[in-house]
């Protein structure tokens, strides 16, 4: 029986440094299962020098909106002199943040993304899409074109654009096919010139790709395989969720494109995160790093990080 004394508010304290998906999930672990029934609210503490990687930003956005949809009180606390709030505003974070989420010191009054959209060749502001609305057919080409603009001197920029186009189109298409009805999904991109990498990320808040593909797993007798092994198979050869033979192509295709650029693949599932590093021109289970028993985060959150050196 849930009593008043068992209801708590949790604090998600992000570190005052660069935060990648691994760090984000470790922080979330310390905070606990914030989507659970005993949590009434969450305070997200973002210190002044906290720098969030683009895939963390999109996952944090999804988490905040999921919490808000569950009628939990969500408060984002930014340091007074920090740059984090400015960067998030520039990326369009607040444009897509649920209205009920409280922002301190205050929510930006003007959208940096709206003002500067398209002016920075190194990033694509967070784009929102929802399977209840037909996909904007310019979305994938626009995202890919930004990658190409960000690397004007590279001889292979056309190939990079082509790969980015396919990855975005397939991941976005996958959301439409597998995520089920629900909250908005997001796509974004950020280049990191000093690290010589580009990170492409697509997140949804659906039922999770493993659940939607379960019938196919059972049909193919794959229920004894670990989720990591199944995930690798999805990106290597595709596993269909429909009876027709042409399904299961999207993740495989995006994986094949990413491998050509030696991209790391980071996938956050409901309670697990898997990082796949390329090995011998493919993704293999023994080169997977897995964080298990993570707090629930609805949906499937996929990011590829291309190395461009």
């Amino acid at each position: 029986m849930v009593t008043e004394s068992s209801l708590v508010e949790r604090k998600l304290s992000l570190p005052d440094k660069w935060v990648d998906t691994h760090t984000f999930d470790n922080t979330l672990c310390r905070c606990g299962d914030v989507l659970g029934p005993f949590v009434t609210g969450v305070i997200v503490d973002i210190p002044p020098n906290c720098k969030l990687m683009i895939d963390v930003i999109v996952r944090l956005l999804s988490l905040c909106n999921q919490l808000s949809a569950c009628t939990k009180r969500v408060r984002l606390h930014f340091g007074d002199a920090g740059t984090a709030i400015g960067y998030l505003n520039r990326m369009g974070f607040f444009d897509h943040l649920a209205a009920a989420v409280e922002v301190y010191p205050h929510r930006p009054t003007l959208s940096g993304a709206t003002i500067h959209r398209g002016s920075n060749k190194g990033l694509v502001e967070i784009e929102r899409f929802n399977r209840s609305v037909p996909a904007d057919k310019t979305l994938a080409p626009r995202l890919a074109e930004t990658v190409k603009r960000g690397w004007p001197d590279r001889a292979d920029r056309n190939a990079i654009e082509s790969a980015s186009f396919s990855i975005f189109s397939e991941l976005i298409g996958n959301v439409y096919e597998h995520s089920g009805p629900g909250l908005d999904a997001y796509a974004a991109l950020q280049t990191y010139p000093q690290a010589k990498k580009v990170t492409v990320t697509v997140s949804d808040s659906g039922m999770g790709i493993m659940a939607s593909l379960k019938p196919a797993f059972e049909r193919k007798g794959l229920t004894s395989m670990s989720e990591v092994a199944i995930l690798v198979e999805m990106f290597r050869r595709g596993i269909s969720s429909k009876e027709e033979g042409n399904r299961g192509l999207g993740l495989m295709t995006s994986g094949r494109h990413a491998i050509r650029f030696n991209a790391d693949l980071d996938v956050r599932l409901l309670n697990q995160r898997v990082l796949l590093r390329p090995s011998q021109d493919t993704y293999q289970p023994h080169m997977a790093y897995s964080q298990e028993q993570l707090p629930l985060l609805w949906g499937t959150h996929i990011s590829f990080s291309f190395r461009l050196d």
Partner: protein
Amino acid sequence: MDGDTKPWGRELGRVTAERLVSTISTGPEKHLVKLSMEGVEQIDASFASEAIAEVIGRYRKKIGICLVDLSDDGIRFNIDMAAAHVGVPVTVWNGSQVDILGAKPSSGNREALNYALERREVRASEFADVAGISIANASTKFKSLWDNGFLMRVETAADSGGVEFLYRRIG
């Protein structure tokens, strides 16, 4: 389609497929259709699967459909993956150069296919002579290539008075 040079996604692929099928199905009877990829800047594998691989597979053994004016490596890569995933071979022409994307022939039929692709049309008996195999064996190979969509064939009268098949590359 409709001026979109970067179509993507399964839904648009299905719409495109319907229009292609409608175009192919109307008008005089056809045995060969050439789809030009000129002006297409990008397509993804999901679009290619519905609009190209599925349509080609649908007309297998009835109408030969090939692609022409395809020079972009990224598009080729996606068509190759999409067609391979559903087991459909896609004949692609660049000038006089022909290539097969997608499904590949079995190792036992590869030589026969290569022989057929170098010529406008072939008879099993011709290949049997060259390869040093029986006519029956050669016939089986070419029939398999026809069954699986790598070649077309037409029925002709054999010199012996019976029926003989001429096998043709698509395009």
